[in-house]
């Protein structure tokens, strides 16, 4: 049985944070044969989505502040802790906290990879910035490479 999944996280009302949901739609249209989930990024939901799975690729907008908007980052979250900045979240608990909470609970999938797209704007609004929109094909290619990586 295929034990892989892709989980896209984001808020379509917060500009570039909508890149996750857009990529989920793009992947759905490709009929990959593995589950593509859209998630709010909360720990309870993530734990349920990846319970018992091996390779999980999670997709979200990220802010490192060290790259140009649209840069595609890959983090091997099952082997390296994510930096948690708790005050940055407007929803109580963010994706990085969720992943670290799952790590504390020993409830991570065997191989969790985060494909993060550097955001340019997270202001209220439904449009992506041009740089992030232009990065979607690269991000999708990277997601597929991570899913298939032997």
């Amino acid at each position, binding site marked *: 049985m295929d034990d892989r999944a892709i989980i896209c996280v984001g*808020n379509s*009302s917060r500009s570039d944070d909508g890149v996750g949901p857009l990529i989920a739609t793009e992947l759905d249209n490709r009929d990959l044969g593995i589950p593509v989930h859209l998630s*709010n990024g*909360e*720990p*309870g*939901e993530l*734990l*349920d989505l990846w319970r018992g799975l091996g390779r999980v690729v999670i997709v979200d907008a990220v802010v490192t502040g060290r790259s140009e908007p649209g840069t595609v980052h890959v983090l091997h979250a099952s082997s390296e802790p994510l930096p*948690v900045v*708790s*005050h940055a979240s*407007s*929803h*109580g*608990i963010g994706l990085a*906290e969720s992943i*670290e*909470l799952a*790590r*504390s*609970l*020993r*409830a991570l999938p065997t191989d969790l990879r985060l494909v993060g797209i550097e955001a340019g704007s997270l202001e*209220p609004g439904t449009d992506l910035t041009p740089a992030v929109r232009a990065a979607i094909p690269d991000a999708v290619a990277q997601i597929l490479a991570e899913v298939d990586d032997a």
Partner: protein
Amino acid sequence: MTKRTIDVNYLARVEGEGSLYVKLDGDTISELEFGIFEPPRYFEAFLRGRQFTEVPDITSRICGICPIGYQTSSINAMEDVCGVTVTPEIDALRRLIYCGEWIESHVLHLFLLHAPDFLGYESAIHLAKDFPDEVQMGLRMKKIGNTVVQVVGGREIHPINMKVGGFFRAPTRRELRALVPELEWGLDAALRTVNLVSGFTFPDLDRDYLFVSMRHDDEYPMARGRVVSSAGLDITAHEYEDHFSESHVERSNALHSLTSDGLAYHVGPMARFNLNVDLLTPQATAAATRANLVPPITNPFRSIIVRAIEIVLAFEEALRIIAEYDPPEPPALDVTPVAGTGFGVSEAPRGLLFHRYRIDGAGIIEEARIVPPTSQNQPTIEADLHDFITANLALSDEDLTWQCEQAIRNYDPCISCATHFLDLRLDRG
């Protein structure tokens, strides 16, 4: 004379961004500022010129944690001005979705934000290593709350199914019955949660609060009722602004609320509990008795037990409403706009949430006013901190800072909501 400061630039584990600055000259607090610096959100201005029917969808964006509170208070205000009284079936469905919001919001705060303070952990991530079963239990309970909101509201965050007059679509009996097994598990988990938090150690602090909450003849307050206080006030939402007023304070983007006599007051779970203990559900009553929770509760650190009791109540009520559920037909009443001013209140998880709108005869909003619970509690939070610090000057800076943050989290402050409204700095010189 020793001078010291408590200075927290970003308060963690609260919604939004705020700070606390305390300056001490010996044993005297010379400055104490609980500041909120998330930029003002101008929602009241966004609302002007919009249709009265749009208000639940716009105001639900104010907060990702308590959208149902915003939707309910705004809908209540619009139905008030238009002279509409909804059916008991619609009222029941509103109470059900509100139960979902109380569960998800209270559980998030209790397990992931507040419990680490009591158990001596920096965060839920650290807590989870030593208390994995409890944290897993909390995550599952929260998810049940999310699911209730999703099934009744159409989706979890910024739900879309509530409207002025009722609901776009009533869930079927089958859809609601599917929630029952998890709700039953959740009720049992909530009772275990009461036992867990009752065993915590509570710092000493007892204050003579003026409590303000809603009250309804038939039920513990959530989506409907009057506004009452521990001083004997009993008014409708129409009279709210005659008794409470907001003023701008320079250090904060939020407005501070006081009574018309200039007194700080306390809204939220402790106020609701103290003013409505006779209306608790059976298992919540029994759990409160076992936890030795006898009103009036005046130690704000014990609010975590009250929150646990309200989680029990929300699970019980959700189960009762589903058992008695009769889908509203039609799911919404027609509402024709009437020029005038409407007033609405409801009990968001953090406390009383007041809305007022003036609309014209075509239903266009001319003026909007929103008073969220956190701005009502802000003067009380500062007063708590003042008394707590004065009584605990012997603590090290590190311990005092920790317990000040814990004292702020007693109120589960939602700073995102209050910016229309935290960083902790303790300055001992």
